[in-house]
């Protein structure tokens, strides 16, 4: 056994680190560090910078313009991006639809859409969940009825992340209501400018606008926008969810959060000493750090396996469950460290000269609440337990 990266992997890490130091605009990393809003322009700017380097579509094969990285390289890249406070790459086009089109799309679809994802012409969002179909995604009801060369789509999608920035949406629609649940679903690409589509914001628990609901009323979509075969969309949906789960351990984000908590607990004083020396608080930090240290190795073990076997196995659900719980615990600690200083509602401080809490920490309550989402999205932690029950425990 050897837990260290190979010399060429360390060289790669240094290359990524140097590149980020040189090319990530401070304005953007400051926004990430301070938990402020990451604007559409910022995200597009960052995507364009990475694209020029050829490091944007990290999950794509070389044939399609990806860097052809190993799972370990991808991991190193993600960790370094977190370390540098780079924005997270918006995954819907790059890490979800891109791989889907490469595996299931026609040559025409690949040639048309993939370059537009890379250069930012298209901003994709995801039309999966519905008000009545969350964990039980296969019960989705949005209908696509074939009429000549078009599908007529009616229904509603929800939890559409950053849909307010998007011009395109990929949807799961029911094309055969008579078939068994999973067998009547198709994967369809929809231009959001098509008449009959309305996007409405959903305001989240902490007050932010991150997700949306999308209403479809008699929306006419060319049949050419079907990906793969009609009624075979569930296979694609599952493929995509697997891609959604990779990197879901969020080890880099948790490492970042741990450092923030420690820095905060060194600055803030309680009972005449730094909070980090308060035994109760220090015990909570130490336990989270221990769990995260184990998580790092669990993540590397699964990366190693994926590298050897070519694909991540079902055990990645362990990463989702444990990774999100650790990250949530760290966000809780950050909020608790600030105490009352975390209370002001984000954006409510009208005097820009007054800092609430050490730099960038005033949003800690908002971040804590926002991060409750991580154990729900991408297949809730309970769904992950169901997956593990079937695949690993064989019960």
């Amino acid at each position, binding site marked *: 056994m050897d*837990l260290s990266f190979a010399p060429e992997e360390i060289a790669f890490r240094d290359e990524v680190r140097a590149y980020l130091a040189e090319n990530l605009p401070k304005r953007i990393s400051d926004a990430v560090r301070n938990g402020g809003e990451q604007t559409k322009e910022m995200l597009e700017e960052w995507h364009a910078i990475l694209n020029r380097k050829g490091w944007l579509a990290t999950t794509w094969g070389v044939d399609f313009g990806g860097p052809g990285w190993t799972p370990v390289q991808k991991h190193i890249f993600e960790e370094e991006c977190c370390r540098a406070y780079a924005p997270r790459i918006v995954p819907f086009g790059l890490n979800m639809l891109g791989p889907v089109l490469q595996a299931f799309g026609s040559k025409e679809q690949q040639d048309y859409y993939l370059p537009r994802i890379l250069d930012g012409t298209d901003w994709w969002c995801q039309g999966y969940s519905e008000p009545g179909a969350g964990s039980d995604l296969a019960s989705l009801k949005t209908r696509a009825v074939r009429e000549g060369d078009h599908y007529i789509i009616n229904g509603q999608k929800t939890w559409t992340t950053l849909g307010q920035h998007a011009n395109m949406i990929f949807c799961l629609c029911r094309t055969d209501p008579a078939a068994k649940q999973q067998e009547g679903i198709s994967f369809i690409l929809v231009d959001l400018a098509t008449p009959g589509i309305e996007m409405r914001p959903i305001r989240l628990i902490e007050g932010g606008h991150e997700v949306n609901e999308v209403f479809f009323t008699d929306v006419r979509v060319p049949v050419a926008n079907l990906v793969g075969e009609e009624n075979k969309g569930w296979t694609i949906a599952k493929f995509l969810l697997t891609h959604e789960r990779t990197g879901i351990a969020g080890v880099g984000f948790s490492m970042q959060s741990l450092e923030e908590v*420690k820095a905060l607990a060194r600055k803030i004083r309680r009972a005449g000493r730094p909070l980090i020396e308060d035994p109760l608080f*220090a015990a909570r930090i*130490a336990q989270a750090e221990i769990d995260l*240290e*184990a998580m790092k190795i669990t993540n590397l073990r699964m*990366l190693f396996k994926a590298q050897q076997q070519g694909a991540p196995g079902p055990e990645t659900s362990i990463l989702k469950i444990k990774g999100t719980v650790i990250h949530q615990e760290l966000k809780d600690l950050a909020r608790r460290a600030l105490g009352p200083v975390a209370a002001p509602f984000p954006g409510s401080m009208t005097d820009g000269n007054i800092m609430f809490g050490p730099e960038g920490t005033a949003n800690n309550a908002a971040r804590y609440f926002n991060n409750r989402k991580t154990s729900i999205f991408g297949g809730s932690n309970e769904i992950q337990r169901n997956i*593990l029950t079937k695949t690993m425990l064989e019960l």
Partner: protein
Amino acid sequence: MDFNLTEDRRMLQDSLNRYLGDKYPVDHRNKVAYALPCHDPDKWAEMAELGALFALAPEDAGGFGGTGFDIMVVFEALGRALNPEPLLGAAMASRLMTKIGADQEVLLSGATKYAVAVGEVEAPYDLDSITCTATAKGAGHVLSGRKSAVYGGQVADVILVAAMLDGKPALFEVQASDAQIAGYPMMDGGGAAEVLLDDTPAKLLMADAADALTDALNAGTLALCAEAVGAMDVTHATTLDYLRTRKQFGVPIGKFQVLQHRAVDMLTEIEQSRSITIKAASELDGPDASRFVSMAKNLIGRAARLVAEEAIQMHGGIAMTWEYPVSHYAKRLVMLDAQLGDTDYHLSRVMAGLKAA
């Protein structure tokens, strides 16, 4: 990065697992484990022949291993079989003897059994609080004091004792026949002893031995972590078998989601335990060994108790019986927390690192 065992370690693991499964099954184990001397001399000799002890020392000390990964492989196999033989003392003694360059041929061959005595009744874990003292007498030294929970002490031929000399913990060798030894079987099987020293003649091995003793304690703690991982794997597998076969309300109880999710949580904690043990093993000879070993023992203390209590609960009565093996695994998993520092003790050590930072 490579998470595969080397070929040599894999072969050792296979042969130990096979031997213990065939020759030292749980029913035999239970006969040995709960009554003095908690030791089967024939089986001990056979385990030594398989290399279970030679694996604990590096080549230049006469062994063929000696790294954290070697300790991990041996003790994980012991844990799977719930083996009560006194290898923990051997592992710790071997670390100490490697550090001082002492010949350990008789230790590694199994001919002489060693135990290591650090903890005391009022200070079971700390080197800092040792009260056992050494006094120069004639050409050598004598020791006075009481050593507590000396694992394998009930059958040891030689005991390596930590005692204060000139205000520092020093390391001495005591012949078991020179000390008063009160051996006992433990709640979870296997033996230990109280070692009473009263002007007992002792040979000084190392005067300022704090670092060497810390290293031996780290190695022993790693060994316990690996043992727990092995025992947790078997406990979990046995629980899953039970969930698949036990029927109530007309279905196997493993069809109930409330039990499925708890079985998954056991799996998650076991994988985290395996990960942190691998990490501790990889750091055993590095500058941060104490920190990573403490992380491992803390996490495993939590995980092992969860696995033990959940296994008993999900077996619904049957694992409360002496006859059913899970009861013995559960006892081991809970009780090993108190060996060489429990979850709270090791959490404090990790917290101390925060403070200094």
